[in-house]
């Protein structure tokens, strides 16, 4: 759960990745999935979206987790009742959506109705749709065309008009999902639906780990969430999805806390905050100095100290020149052994 410090209220976080991972099998994948969920729960995720494609063992093994079940047909309701799931989500496009909604409500299950909205016109239409009052919550997805400062006004009007809880699930077609999710965290959303790695759907969603880390480091440093296992969660995600995390991926990428350029190395040595948005340890990563074409004297000195190599200050400039030339020659930064070879030569 995150805090909207501006409005002094809590915001629930739902992660919708599980149905995207194809967890219908058994064995190691199921155990890993449960472990993955427990790490995300620690990091601030309150609820996980599931559907009838997921092996029910996950629901059984995760007694202390909260789920929201995506209903695709009337038959799914029996699974919801069997596992005592108290929250469901239905797309207005499914057959018998109204009947399903009625049955859920009559069983005391909180129903979220999911509607896609790309622009102002659809948001206004939602605001005027009286039948939606029957739902406990409206999840608005899409939002690909909403620019800054545009849609919060409509979000507030929808809540006021329909008396519902509002769940915001922005898509990432134009790389704005994170921006919208964070705006809504600070404004009118009661719930944010995100997905680990932004995974799933046609265009992806706001990325859970990026939203949680931004919430903790930028929005509200007092946020009581523990992000240190996010990096481990990334490893499990790779195993479950078969997708390799790109090296520059925010929060999870293996290269994001490597630094080489002389100016950055100097700044980070004096105060890491000069060039880091947050301490890498916060998310289970560590910073790493890399030596190559863009290194300066200080970085080389730091590296030699770390390698316990004795050197004369007068030789540093020559060594730096050699490092730069070698780096350009091989087209990358140098490994420690290559630096040592240059020192010895």
């Amino acid at each position, binding site marked *: 759960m995150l805090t909207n410090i501006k409005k002094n209220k809590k915001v629930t976080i739902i992660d919708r990745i599980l149905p995207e991972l194809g967890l219908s099998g058994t064995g190691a994948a199921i155990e890993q999935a449960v472990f993955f969920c427990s790490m995300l729960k620690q990091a601030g995720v309150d609820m996980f979206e599931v559907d009838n494609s997921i092996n029910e063992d996950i629901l059984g093994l995760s007694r202390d987790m909260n789920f929201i079940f995506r209903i695709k047909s009337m038959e799914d309701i029996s699974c919801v009742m069997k596992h005592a799931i108290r929250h469901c989500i239905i797309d207005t496009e499914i057959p018998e959506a109204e009947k399903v909604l009625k049955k859920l409500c009559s069983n005391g299950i909180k129903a979220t109705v999911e509607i896609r909205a790309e622009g102002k016109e659809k948001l206004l239409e939602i605001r005027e749709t009286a039948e939606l009052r029957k739902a406990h919550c409206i999840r608005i997805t899409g939002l690909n065309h909403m*620019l800054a400062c545009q849609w919060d006004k409509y979000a507030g009007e929808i809540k006021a008009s329909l008396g519902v809880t509002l769940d915001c699930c922005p898509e990432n077609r134009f*790389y704005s999902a*994170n*921006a919208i999710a964070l705006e809504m965290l600070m404004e009118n959303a009661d719930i944010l639906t995100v997905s680990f790695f932004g995974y799933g759907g046609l265009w992806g969603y706001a990325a859970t780990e*990026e939203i949680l880390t931004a919430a903790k480091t930028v929005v509200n440093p007092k946020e009581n969430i523990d992000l240190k296992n996010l990096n481990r969660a990334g490893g499990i995600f790779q195993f479950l999805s078969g997708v390799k995390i790109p090296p520059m991926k925010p929060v999870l990428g293996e290269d994001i806390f490597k630094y080489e350029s002389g100016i950055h190395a100097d*700044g980070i040595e004096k105060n890491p905050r*000069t060039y*880091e948005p947050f301490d890498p340890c916060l998310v289970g990563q560590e910073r790493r100095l890399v030596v190559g*074409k*863009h290194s300066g004297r200080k970085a080389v000195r730091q590296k030699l100290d770390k390698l316990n190599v004795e050197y004369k200050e007068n030789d540093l400039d020559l060594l730096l020149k050699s490092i730069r030339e070698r780096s350009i020659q091989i087209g990358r930064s140098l490994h420690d052994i290559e630096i040592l070879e240059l020192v010895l030569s």
Partner: protein
Amino acid sequence: MDTTMRDGEQKAGIALNMSDKIEIFKLLDALNIYQVEAGIPAMGGDEKRCIAKMAELGLKSKVSGWNRMVLEDIDHSLDCKVDILHISVPCSDIQIYSKLSRDRHWVVENLRKCIEYAKENGAALSIGLEDASRADIDFLLQIVFLVRGYGINRIRFADTVGIMMRSEIYEAVKKIKEEAGIGVEVHAHNDFGMAVSNSISAVTAGAEFVDCTIGGIGERTGNCNYLHFIKAAKGQLGIYDNLKLDEAVYLQDKILKIINKN
């Protein structure tokens, strides 16, 4: 605006040689990039020779050299005869006090010195507000007014550690435009996945220039990804109708092959 060969190449582990950079420059020119930030002339050696060579080619894309607020850096850029000399000014207190061990007054006076020196030597300038997102807006405006007073018509607003929300960058750029009437270039980093949305937001606030890199490469999580920005601008702002995405993809892929060859 492209900074693949400056901020992009600063991504730890990338080391381009002269022929790589010249080839990339030609491909960027084919993309009709207005200005290519070619690198840091003060690095000397091959880097400096390469930037000078690019400036000599006389292609459509302007060539700029990146400089610290240091006279010797400026001399190196002047040697390269770049079209535009960019001076980066640390603006946040954390950069001024922690990195430089100076104060705001020193920054202002040193900037004056650097601008006057560069102008005396005939340089066309742009000024970068480094770490603008964590800087005091009044200090930023003080720098902007100083810059405008020297007849310089563009500043770069840099979200150096990628922490800005898009509404914040919108308000900051709007304020600078309204109060100083100067050209604004936005330079966003992607630490929370918002480099593209922040760049779009800056454009809606009036920024006329957007720094991008091919593949979004750059320090840490990188910069505003060129292709992503074009897609977002087409989809959300309805601009760049004349830009053919498949051609951009083709040229981008060629550049990425050069960058990733090792």
